[in-house]
């Protein structure tokens, strides 16, 4: 076996190993890269829709203004209440939206939910210039608006669902 051939084969082997790493990095990139992130943002309906869609169907006959629409259609009425959807035991209870509400397990919160996946002080929901905003307060299990995780302060519109651990609140 000529030595040069062995050297060439050795370099091929090393190239193969690094090709493997490139493929691994590409696989990671396909999941976390900017393309996906950009597609993921407006695709909020798409991944999220799989979740709220059946809910919309169920509520069809109830009220048109609860229909889930984004900024494209501005509703005349302003959000004023938070209605509990989950857990089932407290479904239907309402709270008035104030300038600021805190949601959590601690007794001092404006909305107290003693639930397993709710942190002591989980998130705050506040109204600024007539718009509702949600801000996660470093909770363990995160806060989600229509299936999208809340990072920083995130607006919630009429009919949006705010998920706090296993508690779901709807903006009305």
């Amino acid at each position: 076996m000529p030595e040069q051939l062995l050297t060439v084969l050795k370099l091929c082997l090393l190239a193969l190993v690094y090709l493997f790493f490139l493929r691994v990095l590409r696989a990671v990139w396909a999941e976390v890269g900017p393309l996906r992130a950009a597609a993921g943002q407006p695709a909020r309906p798409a991944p999220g829709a799989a979740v709220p869609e059946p809910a919309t169907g169920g509520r069809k006959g109830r009220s048109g203004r609860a229909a889930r629409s984004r900024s494209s259609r501005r509703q005349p009425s302003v959000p004023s209440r938070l209605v509990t959807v989950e857990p089932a035991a407290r479904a239907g209870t309402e709270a008035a939206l104030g300038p600021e509400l805190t949601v959590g397990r601690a007794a001092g919160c404006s909305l107290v939910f003693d639930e397993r996946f709710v942190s002591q002080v989980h998130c705050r929901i506040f109204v600024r210039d007539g718009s509702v905003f949600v801000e996660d307060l470093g909770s363990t299990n995160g806060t989600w608006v229509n299936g999208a995780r809340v990072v920083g302060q995130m607006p919630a519109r009429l009919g949006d669902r705010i998920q706090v651990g296993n508690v779901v609140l709807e903006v009305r």
Partner: protein
Amino acid sequence: MTATAPPSPAAPRPNVQAIGTRRRTTELGLLVLSAITILGAYALASLGRNASLPADILPFLGVILVLLIAAHLAVRRWARCSDALLLPIVALLNGLGFVFIARLDEQLAGLQATWTGVGIAAFIVTLVVVRDVRVLQRYRYTFGLLGVVLLLLPLLPVFGQNINGARIWVAFGPVSFQPGEFAKIALAIFFAGYLVERREILGVATFRVGPFTTPDPRQFAPVLVAWGISLLVVIFQRDLGSALLFFLLFLVTLWVATGRVVYVVIGFLLFGVGAFVSWTQFSHVQDRVSIWLDPWADPSGSGYQVIQAAYALAWGGTSGVGPGLGIVDRIPFDETDFIVAIIGEELGLLGTTAVLVAFLLLAGSGLRIAKGAGATFGTLLAVGLTSLIAFQAFIIMAGVTRLLPLTGVTLPFVSYGGSSLVSNYVLIALLLRISDQSVRRAPDPLAAL
């Protein structure tokens, strides 16, 4: 009002299915590539050594394919949505390690192949048995106790074996194993399970010591006891690498649980004190340090191993002398502690860098799993398990390259060693389970990737 809230674990949602399918396709593709790489390395090592293709190349290919396909199908069946990268990277590391072991010692290669089979079987069994990581959290104290008992086993008079100056082996008849390799997983579960309960308390300083306020020390008691016992045990067994590993595991889990850097600072100060005290007290620690500082003081005696490793790495240069063309039996324990020196000799800097990159990608995937796991126990456990692999690889590679004093631990998946292989496959199965669960349970699965 009908309750149709996002977390509906009953029926898997369509995008969960899509994620699972995509990830398994990626995994299969990468596995094929790693199988080709391993086969190429095996053939090339034989060409270099005997100037002919290995006679058993077809059975070898068959065994690789059977093992990888079995693992892949098990993941497909029981952890469909889990991370796609862990298994192929592990397969590459294990395969390349095997090639170099086979090139050094054929008898050990047969044993290593058997252990790989046992490891993959353990991997599958773990995936089947552990359907929900939170079950492990429920048994945290049991695992803590199990970890300590496993560490104590080698000290028993009948079963314990003293091999190469370290009392870390247990023999049951013909089968001997290192219980410490399994103890590390049990302790990782215990630390994660315990700290996740107490994270809020540990994050708040209420206890005053002079001008400082710290969290109530009583909260630490069980963890400190388990940790202290494990450290003492491994120090008396003269297994310094494992002592360092347990220490780092504890520190990292505590840091991630509380988010307070002060624990890391205190931990390193304690480590400095502990290292200094053991340096003054124990002769074997002094030996390690003096070999590290100046191996040439006794080049044919205590420094022999480290010096030969340095020569092997230097001889390898950039791309190595070629698989199968290095000098065999140059380094004692070349198939366990010093396997990276052999890789460095035959595949050079590029080869050792590849090993480092593989561990880097493994650690990155592990931390990504931790980040995606919304449930905190899963996060802490994933961080703990990942740091076990990453630090173990770091400790031994740093020892071989004389960045740190040499402490004998195996290079995960690469070194020869049955206990290490099997326990690390169990560890990977647990990481895959955490990953699968977090994708399935997340309100938005895409956010949990």
